[in-house]
């Protein structure tokens, strides 16, 4: 899983990526060290709550994109998990969509492995 996230991070403009389950548990992440585990846990918890409320991955939405003055956040449901990408504002959306589709297909192929690898982050 980490390898797929690392490959996603290789897309120009992608700063970090995170995969969490629908309860807000981080399954894997590839973020620079300045994003500590507490930040990522909080992000995953907020994401799971929001995805549930908006029905992301459950008919309510397939992809969510949030734009900020400093960057972008993309959320895509993958199998029974949620994939979040933090990108710079200047990221090429089309290139990102292609990379996201490839990563999504790879992660779809390994849902069992994802479950077995799930290890809660240290608090």
């Amino acid at each position: 899983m980490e390898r797929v996230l690392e490959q996603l991070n290789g897309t120009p403009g992608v700063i970090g990526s995170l995969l969490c389950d629908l309860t807000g548990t981080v399954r894997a992440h590839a973020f620079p060290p300045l994003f500590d585990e507490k930040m990522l846990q909080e992000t995953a918890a907020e994401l799971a709550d929001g995805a549930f409320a908006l029905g992301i991955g459950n008919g309510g939405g397939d992809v969510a994109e949030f734009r900020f003055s400093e960057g972008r956040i993309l959320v895509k449901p993958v199998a029974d998990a949620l994939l979040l990408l933090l990108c710079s504002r200047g990221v090429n959306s089309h290139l990102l969509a292609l990379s996201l589709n490839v990563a999504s297909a790879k992660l779809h192929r390994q849902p069992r492995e994802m479950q077995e690898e799930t290890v809660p982050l240290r608090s």
Partner: protein
Amino acid sequence: MTQEAVCRERYDGFEGEVVGLPLADLIQLKGNNRFTGCISVEFGGRQGAIFFRDGDIIHAEKGKASGEEAFHLIMRWPGGRFAVHPKVTTTCHSIDKSWRHLLLESHRLMDERRDPEPASPPATTGGGKGEQQGMSGLTDRLRTIPEVTATLLIDRNGVPVGDRRPETEVLAARGFYLANLGSRLGRCLGLEEATSAILEGSREHLFIYTGKRHYLAVAATGESTPGVVEEGIRRAVAGARRGS
């Protein structure tokens, strides 16, 4: 105290190479440890200084530059030497942003230097009654976009402005929740409020744009292409601005 003085004087502290321990990691460490003092950095004969107070970065200097500009210039250096001076302080206060925000901004600026920035999104801004009137005119223009099924102005409490039909309350709730989710995720990752958000779905696409006092929500059919709809929104915003 100037950066030259910091670098000349000897203080109790730690010296090391920036290579091996990235400066960003050192700043994160000092921020988390509520450090008070100064980190002086030297690279290729150039000198810079970053001042902390209780874990917050309050000032930076690099040559004639100071504040955030100096901080970002220092962060661009690919290596060098740093020294930590716990007892050095300053009366200057040129930076108010959190160290997380500053580091993320530095990351973004470095990224943008490698990748030019695209055109800005069609966020609508303004304030008070003028904003509301301007946006009311805008919603009329938006309704002429074929793929658009509904448009709505929402106040900062999630309440639809003017139109209180049940279907508009549903759109207001989803739009408000989407905008808030963006801002909550942004806060977790050191970003500020989301300026816009898109929720692409098979049944419906939802677009939300943040104004100073209102949100603008636009719903479009799930068969439409979000980029095409957004281009229509962009044109409607431009048209409303010209018309107002």
